[in-house]
């Protein structure tokens, strides 16, 4: 096999192999486990950087493995997969550091980090899937790998959350499977192709194709937490903080949103989807989710739950971008895949730090945390402002392009949705910032663990949110620089719309 055919598989295996080895390690082998984790993450990063350059130059990377006659496992890289792969690889590295710090003294770490690596491998597999079969395979493996992470703590709460998570995702997986098989029975193996493959399909199967679209959407919508399929997400909050970060920013919800983007652009084709009203349906669903998620976030006192509902809302920006016919909105949706990831992971890291250092779990307990934990709170502030859409943080760029795209496509109602959503975002984030910075601290924190070093909390817990906050800020500040997420999203839109 040539190097080009080997690269996608290597990227997948760079986290899979360490994961498998970690399972076998005894609980005490801290060093070896950390070494395996970090080696995997760094090797993956190197390979992905290599791939980014190649894909930019139009190089084709494809690993193809025949499972049985007519069924191929295809890993391939186009601009869209690179966007997702790069995001997950970068954030895996950061989250691994954070998780090592966060779980320093807790039990069952071999099991945790093993599944953690499998989870990232599945996400990368989803990103690199070259056909619908491969996508379904990794989508299901992701479910299998995240279940143990959600259940990890073993408390009755965790068991319940994991059960709800499983019920939703298994149901979604089954629908996706049915849709994929139905589609394949109708049109043959479905390879992801720019412009979609269904534009040329015969007229008499059009109704069936539309029906299949909704089956697929229901299957993907569970992970993407589209209303009313989002019920698992707030429940899954019982997982340890690094898992929540991974679930919300990188792996699970993104896998769903990414799948929707793939189905719209590379299976159905945006023109076919537009002409048959599929885009409008998706847009309405996304808008309802955006508003609903924000309203629910407003009513939560638990910080993690508020962030969870915020995820429900924000992830749908990606689907919204895909649902507007026109390259500018596409850019907005795609770039939000990365931007939301950077901002949301920052917020979850910070929430984890508040809980870890001060025992603060609720918004109402956050008075004065700014002065007590300035760096964490600064990172949190950047993330929150970004979510609201304040320039120059990355979130502003996404919303700007979405709005511009909507205006360009004549869907002015979308702008209304964006404005309402931003107001709601402000309504549930600004009070937190106000409490953190402008209210006096209580005499005693709920459960304080004073860190011995010079920093407010262990470095492994502090640096990750600071780094991701800086990244979120830079993605906005330097949006026009080459290889910025925005530039990359423009490249995708250019290729999808064939200009």
């Amino acid at each position, binding site marked *: 096999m040539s190097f080009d055919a080997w690269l996608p598989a290597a990227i997948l295996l760079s986290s899979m192999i360490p994961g498998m080895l970690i*399972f076998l390690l005894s609980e005490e082998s801290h060093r070896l486990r950390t070494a395996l984790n970090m080696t995997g993450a760094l090797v993956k990063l190197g390979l992905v950087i290599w791939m980014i350059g190649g894909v930019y130059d139009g190089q084709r990377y494809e690993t193809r493995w025949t*499972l049985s006659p007519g*069924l191929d*496992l295809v890993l391939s890289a186009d601009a869209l997969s690179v966007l997702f792969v790069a995001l997950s690889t970068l954030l895996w590295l950061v989250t691994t550091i954070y998780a090592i710090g966060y779980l320093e003294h807790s039990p*069952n770490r071999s099991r945790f980090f093993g599944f953690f690596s499998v989870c990232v491998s599945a996400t990368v597999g989803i990103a690199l899937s070259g056909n619908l079969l491969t996508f379904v395979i990794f989508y299901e493996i992701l479910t299998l790998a995240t279940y143990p992470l959600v259940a990890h703590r073993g*408390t009755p709460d965790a068991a319940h959350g994991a059960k709800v998570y499983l019920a939703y995702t298994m149901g979604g997986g089954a629908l996706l*499977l049915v849709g994929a*098989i139905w589609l394949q029975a109708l049109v043959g193996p479905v390879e992801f192709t720019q412009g979609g493959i269904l534009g040329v399909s015969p007229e008499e199967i059009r109704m069936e194709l539309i029906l299949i679209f909704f089956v697929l959407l229901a299957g993907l919508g569970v992970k993407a937490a589209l209303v009313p399929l989002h019920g698992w997400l707030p429940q899954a909050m019982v997982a340890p903080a690094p898992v929540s970060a991974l679930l919300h920013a990188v792996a699970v919800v993104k896998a769903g949103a990414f799948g929707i983007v793939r189905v719209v652009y590379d299976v159905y084709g945006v023109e076919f989807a537009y002409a048959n009203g599929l885009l409008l349906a998706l847009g309405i669903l996304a808008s309802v989710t955006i508003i609903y998620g924000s309203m629910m976030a407003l009513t939560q006192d638990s910080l993690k739950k508020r962030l969870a509902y915020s995820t429900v809302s924000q992830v749908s920006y990606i689907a919204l971008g895909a649902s507007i016919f026109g390259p500018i909105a596409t850019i907005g949706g795609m770039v939000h895949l990365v931007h939301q990831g950077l901002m949301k992971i920052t917020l979850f890291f910070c929430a984890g730090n508040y809980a870890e250092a001060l025992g603060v779990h609720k918004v109402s307990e956050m008075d004065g945390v700014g002065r007590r934990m300035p760096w964490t709170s600064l990172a949190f502030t950047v993330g929150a402002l970004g979510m609201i859409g304040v320039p120059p943080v990355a979130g502003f760029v996404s919303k700007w392009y979405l709005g511009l795209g909507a205006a360009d496509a004549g869907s002015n109602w979308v702008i209304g949705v964006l404005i309402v959503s931003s107001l709601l975002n402000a309504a549930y984030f600004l009070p937190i910032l106000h409490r953190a910075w402008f209210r006096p601290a209580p005499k005693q924190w709920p459960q304080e663990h004073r860190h011995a070093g010079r920093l407010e909390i262990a470095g492994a817990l502090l640096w990750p949110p600071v780094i991701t906050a800086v990244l979120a800020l830079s993605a906005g500040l330097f949006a026009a620089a080459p290889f910025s997420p925005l530039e990359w999203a423009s490249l995708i839109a250019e290729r999808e719309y064939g200009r």
Partner: protein
Amino acid sequence: MIDALPLSVTLPLLGAFAVTVWPAHARALGLLAAVLTAASALTVTAAVWTEGVLRADLGGWGAPLGIALEADGLSAAFLSMANTVALAISVYAGGYFKRESARHFWPLWLLLWSALNGLFLAADLFNLYVTLELLGLSAAALGALTGTREAVAANLRYLLVGLLGSMSYLLGVALVYTAYGVLDIGLVAEAIEPGPVAWTAMTLMISGLILKAALFPMHFWLPPAHANAPAPVSAALSALVVKAAFYLVLRLWLDVFAPVLNEAAANLLGILGAAAVVWGSWRALRAERLKLLAAYSTVAQMGYLFIAFPLLAATPPGLARDNLLAAVVLLALTHGFAKAGFFLAAGMVQKTAGHDRIDELGGAAQALPAATFAIGLAGVALIGLPPSGTFLAKWMMLEQAMILGLWWWLVVMMIGTLLAAAYIFRVLSRAFNREPTPYRFVNDARTELPALLLGLIATFGLGIAAQPLWALLEQGAFG
């Protein structure tokens, strides 16, 4: 090369004699016989793969008089699965049984193994009857090994049901012999003509076999028999013995009764299969004991295999039908590995906890990562999730069902899949317990590794590297 054919039947038989004569060395001799048998059987598979269909006429007599053995792709596929699983069971049994019970286990187990290999390789209908009878007798005796009242009662029933099944089969054989004067499968296939005789013979033979394969509603004997046997025996019964009966139905369907077939019969088998999928999965979900759950899961999994018949009947010969056939075989093989792995691991958990009540298994499951992983991997294959062989097989079956427009089979199989996910995760969720345990991945290599390996084969081996199965089935099984 040809010699490996009779060897894979006679070696375990010799082993059975040896362990009876020298019971003090039962374990060592038994393991030796197991390794040699598996090696000879895998040699047969390799030879079929590279050289094509093998045939051996014992004693120099050709058909229609002598005892003939024949291996084509279909038999070779089942043979290799059965012998790999049987070898794993043997290694496990070496660590599982205490001295006294080992004496009773090994002779019966090797006898069963010999019958099993004979069944996959026999080339005529009467020899098939002999192997079937021997298989049933040794299986029932093994099942009663624990000696508990439940086990003895369940296996007495199993024995009677088995005899009834063999009798029905034998009647069909007698009918064929009186009508056509031949017993060799190839010769019968040439001679047989559609008509009342052929139809009656087919009905008798297939009814006998589906009774032995525990197809709904004839499954009633299976759960108590499989759940009360010792773990390695449960594994053999659930993974191999019922599978042998299914193999014979498939063999007769494809090779002997092809001219007599009609869609009504195929649909009837499919409907019973669908009922088995739903009922078996539901009962598995309600089961309070781990091994009972596994036994009901077998009822459900056998159902999937029978759903293949209406699909096969509706698909015209050609590439699509070949793929469908391969998918069915893949499903059967994957289930063999997965169910054996599941039972072996469950046995380990049961031994550690002292019981197998699912609700109280938490600590034991958490303390045995390798066994729990084996249950998890086997579970992935039982549900039919990727990357297991079951997923691939189900995908192909479902796609063909959709192409044929027979969407209701898809609905049934998806319901079964979701129910399976529910009953498997009901078990797995116990492994997440709050107490931290000293973590070592493998605690008892001899019993945990065979289970883990079987689980890995089912989930990764057959899912990702299923391609060789097609090459194997090219040898006489397709077309």
